[in-house]
């Protein structure tokens, strides 16, 4: 799964640590998500979508 987390995070000038605190996960988890090494649960995907002020999960997470 590809993600646009890094792109939107940079756009909104949020650090990995800040985003991690917003969605209550570790910074390493955000890093893994950005690298595409880990697929999030629906709950986490939803939280990240809200934290990055997007409407749909598909805006951020793209299936290969």
């Amino acid at each position, binding site marked *: 799964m590809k993600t646009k987390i890094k792109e939107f995070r940079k756009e909104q000038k949020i650090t990995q640590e800040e985003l991690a605190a917003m969605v*209550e*996960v*570790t910074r*390493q*988890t955000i890093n*893994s998500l950005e690298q595409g090494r*880990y697929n*999030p649960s629906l*709950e*986490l995907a939803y939280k990240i979508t809200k934290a990055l002020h997007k409407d749909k999960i598909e805006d951020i997470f793209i299936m290969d």
Partner: protein
Amino acid sequence: MTSKKVVTKKGMMYRIVFIAVLMAGGFLLNTYNIGTNELFGFSTVGNYLIYIGFVMILVTSIMYFTKREKIIDERIEMLRYRAGTLTYMVFIFVAFALIILDGIRPITMRYSLFISYAVCAVLLFYVITYKVLDRKY
């Protein structure tokens, strides 16, 4: 699913009570000469319990004074689960291999020492597996 682990006063109290019970049990066993067989390199079971108590005091003190907030998120839970499953599978496989090896050439090691090695090996394998999976995921 996320949870934050913080060393609370209530949690600390439970730990202190548990340590006190453990050490008191050790002193009582020593006083009444119960469990005088050697255990994991200790002369009596009581001494072993007292030693464990001291180790727990050390660990609890470090936890209390560092007071770091530890976040456990879904990725960490997944890593724990996978590392645990892998360790369990390897443990079963090694146990099976040891049964066969014992049939070929009997293992004459002391039971207490053997169990000590086994526990250390399981813990070490779990930690290594966790670290490897942490890099992968």
